[in-house]
């Protein structure tokens, strides 16, 4: 039998999660419908005579991604709680690092697809002509999502062990989302307003350093969560 490396463990865990997801599609479909609903409801959450589509759009986009992401994150370890599958996972020689990376990958794909589908709807609903700015916007979304998912994966592994885990995750996770989401909103409105790149660098570096620091930290701390 080939020796399992961290990478192979990570891919196996991610593939397993995505396969479970593909077979049921419940979490994915509900997250997506939820995202569309939030986008549509937020459109009406203002006085249209004073707040234009354009002013509302960046906040609406990120509130949507945050809420939809939170639903997705809860799923990753709830899956393992059923039939105590996490104990089974722990009994295998898979390293904590591999499991964490796999869970992060699975969540990234999950949330990435939700974002990929809701982004065109966002452009459509809020009538923001951003096709020329799309690459940089996608880059910002990717960066914010990585930070979000890294911290979210670590915290969701903790909250599944508690009672009321569905409520607990937002309570613990939202303070951690202040830096990435505020940065992302700031970047998004600048991108939509066609501001020069020099106005983006400050927030981009904040977002980038959040990603690097919290990804590393979550990776290091995950072992303390998993190992009994």
């Amino acid at each position: 039998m080939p020796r399992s490396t961290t990478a192979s463990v990570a891919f196996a865990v991610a593939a397993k999660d995505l396969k479970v997801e593909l077979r049921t599609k419940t979490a994915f479909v509900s997250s997506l419908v939820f995202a569309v609903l939030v986008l549509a409801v937020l459109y009406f959450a203002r006085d249209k005579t004073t707040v234009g589509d354009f002013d509302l759009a960046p906040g609406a986009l990120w509130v949507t991604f945050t809420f939809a992401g939170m639903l997705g994150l809860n799923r990753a370890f709830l899956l393992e709680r059923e039939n105590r599958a996490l104990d089974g996972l722990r009994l295998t020689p898979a390293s904590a690092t591999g499991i964490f990376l796999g869970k992060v990958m699975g969540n990234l794909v999950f949330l990435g697809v939700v974002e990929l589908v809701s982004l065109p709807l966002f452009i459509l609903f809020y009538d923001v002509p951003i096709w020329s700015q799309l690459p940089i916007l996608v880059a910002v979304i990717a960066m914010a999502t990585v930070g979000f998912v890294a911290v979210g994966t670590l915290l969701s592994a903790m909250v599944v062990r508690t009672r009321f885990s569905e409520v607990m995750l937002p309570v613990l996770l939202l303070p951690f989302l202040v830096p990435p989401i505020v940065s992302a909103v700031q970047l998004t409105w600048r991108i939509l307003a066609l501001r020069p790149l020099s106005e983006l660098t400050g927030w981009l570096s904040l977002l980038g350093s959040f990603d690097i620091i919290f990804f590393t930290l979550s990776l290091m701390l995950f072992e303390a969560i998993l190992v009994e």
Partner: protein
Amino acid sequence: MTRRERALTTAHRGTIITGIALLGLVGVYVRALMFTPMERSQGLAQKIFYVHAPVAWAALLAFGITGLLSLLYLMLRDRKLDLIAAASAEVGVAFAVVMLTTGPLWGKPVWGTWWTWDARLTSTLFTFLLFVGYLVLRGALTDFEVRGRFSAVLGVMALVLVPFIHVTVYWFRTLHPDPVVMKPEAPSLPSVMLVTLLTSMAVCTLLYVGFIMQRYALAVLRDVREEEAAGGLS
């Protein structure tokens, strides 16, 4: 001496320290109201400053200690560290509540508004909520070993997060100057006021020590009782 007796001694000492600190607080207020001159533009409202700023200091100290002890707990796995970290978070949250209520009381007459999204206000609010979350998480976990590990992980994450939140909200504010915010430049304090402030800070630190000793002792006593209950069952 058994664990229980030691905890009771700690609790007793904590009570004495708290008593001294509370007397000190009375002293601070006598000094602030009678022997410290009235600030010209803010009037009586400025007296809140002598409790608000020291309490904010104590809250920050408490949260910092929770974070550092969490880090130490993950390395050393000493249960005592976990219990002190939790006690510190509890006391910190209590101080933060005082900070967040005295702030608006001062803000209304001086700034003309109860709350503004000023950088410092915003970051303390999020820090407060973060540590409330820490306590909620502890409350939701029953196994002491799991509780210790998980809350230590959250404590370490929080320690790193707080500076990030501060930078974020600070940039947010400076990039979007809000004309409603009339935060005065911090004036260099006259020495009479400074002495009152520093005394109050010392008193609040002492109060923190007194509180934390009592909360810690309580946590140990609870622990002991749980152990006894478990022992009685087996």
